[in-house]
């Protein structure tokens, strides 16, 4: 094993806090970016939900943000779709992909493997700033005359490919979107390489792969999935932009007519775009959820005071199986797309199979609680919340994995509820678990536990009020991505939509408790000890926050696995004492 890549402590504000190569600073930068993006994404969802429930209501500030898109604060149908597109884009990429992986991973992974930094610190800095550039491009779409794109986060061609001829929201906003995602892909590829090499090469003495903390396993497996999936999305985005700006026809077939004008394209395939997008898009939901698996598996033993049942192996091999199978199930997004109906069966079977490792992981978490000594601190509550939401979301998968039932439920709010549970809110809850857990290490101060619990109760109940209603109303065939409820069968759902809107606003309001807690605790919270949770892994074996080189020059030797818990007793991974939990 190599020594960590050494670089001198930075001098000056810019090198220390802005263009920093320190993985800890980069981790905090990613986390902060995600936090900002999360509040932007959430604000977009409020505006959408208010518009759905009370279409004539003048939404404060919205008319100022976009005089064209929302004159007087009442949004146009196209602006609704633009907000929806940007909500999905910002949340899926800049929050759910960035926070649990790049945010916590950057900060914690090198420390958890006993390294002084990532293997390639400069690439790491580049990852963040390229991501940041991507985020700026995404935000810039709000401030150009044509506004953000409206083709959804999936950007199906040819709507996304033919340009302004397809209507508003298809001008430069869609180009900027393409660049934004391309930047994000490049950053993710660089980040993934860093995570993989750091895990393989920079582990400290005695830290065999079998002794890796489970969060490191989550990030490591995730990095592989990321590497392979973003490598496909990047060229897809570039081909889309070429179709738009370069006159190519990768995704545009011949014979298209807009405004009675035949378009000068021929030979492209819209289904090719769908295949390429979903070849990335389905692994993407696992890219989002695998770090969550890792974080929850890492946090739980600390608070249940015993190892997970099955040790590191069962849950880790489940994650590897999920990551591998995630590449052969993408077609289940395309059952009604015009793809061969025989292919539907080909994709349906692995989709049912991928539930096996997912169920194994859930059973491990649930049955690990058996006979435990649970400490109900906020990180654990969020972990339990994650399990509950993931079960609920996963159950919906059974309906959507089968082509026949999917042919009824496809494109309904059932799907929207399902994926918000499975990879949206589950990942957010795991991120919150990680945030409350690692905040003392990252900032050297404890968060307020009472506010943390209050935040959890309101969020947990709020999430169910919004998304179980959303999923169940989908049983009526309620169509997603509609900016107004005008169909005969949608009108009776208005009371349910209003209930969801009120619940979503309250759920959103509860997030300000979290924000307040973060800001207050950052400056006024009680000083955090090195190991406030009686945990065992290397990040708790150094000061809070850790010094620049993470361990103050100490050479660590690891003797144990990460789950040496036995009730109130626990052993640091570096402790030379004999194992108490046999991990």
């Amino acid at each position: 094993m190599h020594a960590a890549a050494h670089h001198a402590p930075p001098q000056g504000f810019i090198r220390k806090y802005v263009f920093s190569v320190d993985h800890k600073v980069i981790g905090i930068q990613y986390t902060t970016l995600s936090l900002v993006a999360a509040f932007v994404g959430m604000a977009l969802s409020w505006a959408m939900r208010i518009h759905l429930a009370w279409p004539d209501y003048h939404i404060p500030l919205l008319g100022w943000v976009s005089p064209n898109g929302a004159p007087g604060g009442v949004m146009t149908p196209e602006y609704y779709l633009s907000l929806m597109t940007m909500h999905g884009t910002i949340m899926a990429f800049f929050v759910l992909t960035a926070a649990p992986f790049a945010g916590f991973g950057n900060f914690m992974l090198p420390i958890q493997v006993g390294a002084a930094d990532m293997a390639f610190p400069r690439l790491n800095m580049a990852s963040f700033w390229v991501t940041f550039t991507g985020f700026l491009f995404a935000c810039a779409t709000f401030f150009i005359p044509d506004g953000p794109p409206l083709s959804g986060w999936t950007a199906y061609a040819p709507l996304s490919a033919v340009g302004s001829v397809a209507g508003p929201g298809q001008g430069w906003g869609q180009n900027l979107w393409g660049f934004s995602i391309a930047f994000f892909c490049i950053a993710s590829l660089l980040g993934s390489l860093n995570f993989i090499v750091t895990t393989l090469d920079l582990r400290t003495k005695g830290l065999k792969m079998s002794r890796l903390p489970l969060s490191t396993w989550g990030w490591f497996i995730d990095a592989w999935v990321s590497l392979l999936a973003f490598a496909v999305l990047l060229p897809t985005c570039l081909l889309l932009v070429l179709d738009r700006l370069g006159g190519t026809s990768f995704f545009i077939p011949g014979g298209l007519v807009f405004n009675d004008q035949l378009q000068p394209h021929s030979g492209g395939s819209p289904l090719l775009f769908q295949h390429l997008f979903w070849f990335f898009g389905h692994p993407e939901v696992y890219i989002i959820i695998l770090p969550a698996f890792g974080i929850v598996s890492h946090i739980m033993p600390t608070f249940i005071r015993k190892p997970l049942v099955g040790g590191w192996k069962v849950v880790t091999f489940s994650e590897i199986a999920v990551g591998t199978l995630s590449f052969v199930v993408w077609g289940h997004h395309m059952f009604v797309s015009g793809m061969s109906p025989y292919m539907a069966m080909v994709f349906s079977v692995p989709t049912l199979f991928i539930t096996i490792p997912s169920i194994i992981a859930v059973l491990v978490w649930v049955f690990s609680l058996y006979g435990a000594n649970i400490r109900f601190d906020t990180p654990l509550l969020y972990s339990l919340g994650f399990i509950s939401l993931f079960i609920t979301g996963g159950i919906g998968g059974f309906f959507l994995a089968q082509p026949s039932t999917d042919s009824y439920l496809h494109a309904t709010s059932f799907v929207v509820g399902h994926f918000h549970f499975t990879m949206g809110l589950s990942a957010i809850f795991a991120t919150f678990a990680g945030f409350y857990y690692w905040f003392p290490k990252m900032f050297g101060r404890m968060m307020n536990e009472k506010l943390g619990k209050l935040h959890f109760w309101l969020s947990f109940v709020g999430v169910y009020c919004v998304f179980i209603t959303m999923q169940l109303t989908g049983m009526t065939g309620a169509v997603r991505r509609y900016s107004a409820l005008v169909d005969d069968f949608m009108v009776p759902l208005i009371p349910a939509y209003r209930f969801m809107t009120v619940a979503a606003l309250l759920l959103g309001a509860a997030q300000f408790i979290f924000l307040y807690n973060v800001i207050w605790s950052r400056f006024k919270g009680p000083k955090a000890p090195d190991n406030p949770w009686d945990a065992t892994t290397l990040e708790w074996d150094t000061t809070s926050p850790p010094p620049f080189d993470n361990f103050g020059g100490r050479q660590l030797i690891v003797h144990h696995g990460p789950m040496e818990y036995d009730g109130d007793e626990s052993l640091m991974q570096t402790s030379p004492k004999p194992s108490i939990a046999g991990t």
Partner: protein
Amino acid sequence: MAGKIFAVIVVLVTIATAYCVIAHVWWMPVDISVHGPRIDKQLEETMLVAGLLFIAGQVVLAAFAFLYGGARGKPKQIPGGAKYLVILAFAIVGAEILALSLVGSKAWGAVYFEAPDPNSLHVDVQAGQFAYYFRYPGPDGTFGTLHPELINEGGQNFFGLDTDHDADAKDDIVTAEIAIPVNQPILLTLHSKDVGHSFDVRELRVQQDFVPGMIIPIHFTATQTGRFEIVCTQLCGLGHYNMKAYLSVLSQADYDEWLKKQAAMQ
């Protein structure tokens, strides 16, 4: 205390969800197609299996959170360890696949692996931002050829038909609504002139995308008369939410009369 509150919330959520499903608070509309009951049956079977798993998962999670809070002496693992959990996961999914794939109603194959009835009534459907147009072949039973460059919505030539030179196109009947006879096998060919759209009639249990550049066939038989909404479920631009048409399922006599009236209006 927190564990007990958590358990109570989880159980309440589970009960509320189960109630909404069992009481059909939000449920599928009446089914009016020959193949539809197979899909409904598959969905109900899935709901039963998935619902039981949902309840079991949440209740066990709640029970453990309720029971195992606080310091309780030496922690212990579940008897048998992870081996039984892995077996249980395989058993759950195995039972699910068996129930749904083997003894289930095989709804997908019954609809999509079968060729349309040779005596089907063939209606050609074109979608464009943000309307559907339907075309009947007329007395000659043959559709005219499509010429996208001739599409002229202002001139009412929605399909791009060359009625001056194409004899087959002359008697094509183009409508903005679709009517079909009840109990008559129907074949639709779906094509789009601009972007992706979808043909979704909930009561028929039919949802199929239009993909530009492709002609996608779909077939069904309606079993009840009535008027039903066709809605677009594939995001197609600003008017997506308002893109719809109506499907009228008529008696044969009413259908014949309707078609005659449409032909006269061409």
